């Protein structure tokens, strides 16, 4: 990175954070601190909901998914539009009528204290874990490729977000997310345009798509009913529906965003904005990865995209197998490039027979290249057992640093940090709100002035921020990072969602039945996750269905009388 890149990076990040602190100075009320000024329009709500979900991992890791596996990951989001409709039609009016601070407060009003605390505790557990991942992921990748200290990067990003979130609360999160998403959008569009200009001059967009299609990178909708496949239309539609319903409808980091709307109408439209644009956005990010794949068919790619891990392995590899693999991969790539060019030339000249033959040979050459990459990963792991063997998270950043002009590199790095800060800020805000309203005010100190609870919220914001930083400093994740976040979510979300579905639709079920049903269902999900080899998206459905079923059975066993005899106070 050059001085220009650093100026762009620091200017964008510190400028937006500073603006957030300045814009929200002097705000004192609890409602204002936790829910904003409740005058937010639908576009800001829509942007805020989008920015909360789209963390830095989305923009760093998803193009790598596109590069490696093509567009198939987009199916993960197929359930989101339908889930957002359900939330806008049913969940949102209820939250607004009750004027709740947190989604779990609703559980307390519908059921009882212990169910409210269980819902809040499940949220804090899974979101607390994810908060660590969302700060760890960009920091570890950026520090590796930019040769920054990982701990210093984590601390710096963590402290910036703690300062403006603690200072300005929910409103600071909203106003900064607007500009952060602007930086992200500009950066990604600029990268897309530059990427198109970097493709060979004689390669049309049709040719580029043909290359991507031939290597099955455009396979986006798989109607297979095989539950072992990670991404299919059905797992995306059903599992994704329950994941999105739970995430957008019951996760406080999202609920808090749309509760800040000026009216039910503004909040609803903000959600519908996401329902329309969520799939196109993910498609666009994955397409970047697919285009990077096409680019690297004509430019030599590294055999392993995590250069730091590779160099470390080369230093340890006494037999020089890694070096040899690197050379073989370069030769295989050159041969593949020639075959692709021959195929495209033959197709342009109408020589169908040569085109068909060259295309088949190029596919075979690609298979051999992939085998060399797999062998390289295994050899690297043998030479350095602590090395990360998954390099897909490094694909996009390697392309950026190697092929984008200075200034734009700074903008893209700023975009990654902006995404990290925007999702982290919403998470800290939600974790602090839940801790304050569902635990501190509910259990520890029920009667106090607003200023006291605002101070407590600030304290919990800093506390959760430090927990996330500590987790990030000691984390070591092997999975592709965006999948790691979704897996953690899928383990807990189904049961949390069931608590709300029972609350909304099964009016005969009371607090005691749903409480024990949730504990049973969560235990079942833990056990099944250890033994069942199915796409993690299905655990959303399994957890939800199990909890609903157990609730009905337990309520039938308890009978209506025992439910009424419950001694726990209602809120």
């Amino acid at each position, binding site marked *: 990175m050059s001085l220009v890149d650093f100026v762009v990076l620091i200017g964008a990040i510190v400028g937006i954070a500073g603006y957030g602190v300045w814009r929200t100075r002097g705000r004192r009320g609890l409602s204002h601190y936790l829910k904003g000024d409740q005058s937010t329009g639908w576009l800001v709500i829509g942007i805020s909901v989008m920015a909360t979900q789209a963390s830095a991992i989305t923009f760093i890791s998803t193009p790598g998914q596109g590069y490696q596996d093509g567009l198939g990951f*987009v199916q993960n989001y*197929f359930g989101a539009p*339908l889930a957002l*409709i359900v939330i*806008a039609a049913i969940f949102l009016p209820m939250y607004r009528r009750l004027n709740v601070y947190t989604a779990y407060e*609703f559980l307390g009003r519908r059921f009882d204290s212990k169910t409210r605390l269980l819902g809040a505790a499940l949220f804090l557990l899974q979101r607390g874990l994810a908060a660590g991942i969302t700060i760890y992921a960009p920091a570890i990748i950026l520090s590796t490729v930019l040769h920054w200290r990982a701990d210093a990067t984590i601390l710096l990003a963590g402290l910036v977000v703690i300062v403006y979130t603690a200072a300005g609360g929910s409103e600071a999160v909203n106003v900064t997310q607007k500009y952060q998403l602007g930086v992200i959008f500009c950066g990604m569009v600029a990268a897309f345009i530059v990427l198109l200009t970097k493709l060979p001059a004689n390669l049309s967009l049709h040719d580029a798509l043909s290359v991507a*299609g031939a290597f099955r990178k455009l396979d986006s*909708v798989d109607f297979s009913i095989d539950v072992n496949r990670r991404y299919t239309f059905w797992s995306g539609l059903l599992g994704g529906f329950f994941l999105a319903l739970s995430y957008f409808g019951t996760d406080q980091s999202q609920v808090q965003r749309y509760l800040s709307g000026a009216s039910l109408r503004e909040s609803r439209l903000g959600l519908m904005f996401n329902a329309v644009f969520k799939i196109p956005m993910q498609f666009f990010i994955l397409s970047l990865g697919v285009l990077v794949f096409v680019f690297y068919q004509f430019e030599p790619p590294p055999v392993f995209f995590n250069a730091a891990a590779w160099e470390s392995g080369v230093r340890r590899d006494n037999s020089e197998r890694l070096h040899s693999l690197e050379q073989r991969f370069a030769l295989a790539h050159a041969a593949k490039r020639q075959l692709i060019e021959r195929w495209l030339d033959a197709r342009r000249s109408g020589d169908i027979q040569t085109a068909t033959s060259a295309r088949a040979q190029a596919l075979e050459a690609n298979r051999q290249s992939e085998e060399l990459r797999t062998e390289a990963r295994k050899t690297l792991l043998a030479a350095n057992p602590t090395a990360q063997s998954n390099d897909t998270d490094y694909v996009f950043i390697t392309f950026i640093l190697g092929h984008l002009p200075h200034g734009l590199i700074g903008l893209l790095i700023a975009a990654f940090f902006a995404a990290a800060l925007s999702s982290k800020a919403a998470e800290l805000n939600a974790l602090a709100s839940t801790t304050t309203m569902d635990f501190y005010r509910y259990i520890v100190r029920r009667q106090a002035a607003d200023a006291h609870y605002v101070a407590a919220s600030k304290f919990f914001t800093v506390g959760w921020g430090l927990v996330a930083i500590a987790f990030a400093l000691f984390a070591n994740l092997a999975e592709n990072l965006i999948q790691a976040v979704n897996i953690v979510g899928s383990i807990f979300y189904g049961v949390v969602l069931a608590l709300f579905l029972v609350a909304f639709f099964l009016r005969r079920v009371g607090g005691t039945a749903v409480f024990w049903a949730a504990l049973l269902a969560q235990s079942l999900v833990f056990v099944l996750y250890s033994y069942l080899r199915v796409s993690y998206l299905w655990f959303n459905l399994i957890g939800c269905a199990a909890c609903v079923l157990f609730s009905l059975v337990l309520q039938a066993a308890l009978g209506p009388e025992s439910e009424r005899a419950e001694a726990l106070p209602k809120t």
Partner: protein
Amino acid sequence: MISPDDSIGTDDPPDGKPADPADEATGLPWLKSWLSVYVFVTMCFVTWVVLLVALERVFS
């Protein structure tokens, strides 16, 4: 304080406040009711899936 089951899950606002008439209107020029907004969103989703399938078929 709101008692459970009596107020939640019903059409009546539990806090006694009447629904704001402004919330019933979408404020959109072409989609006047919320049902039409939801249908529009669903159609957008279906269109995206069809386009993705078409992209896959054309270039595979």
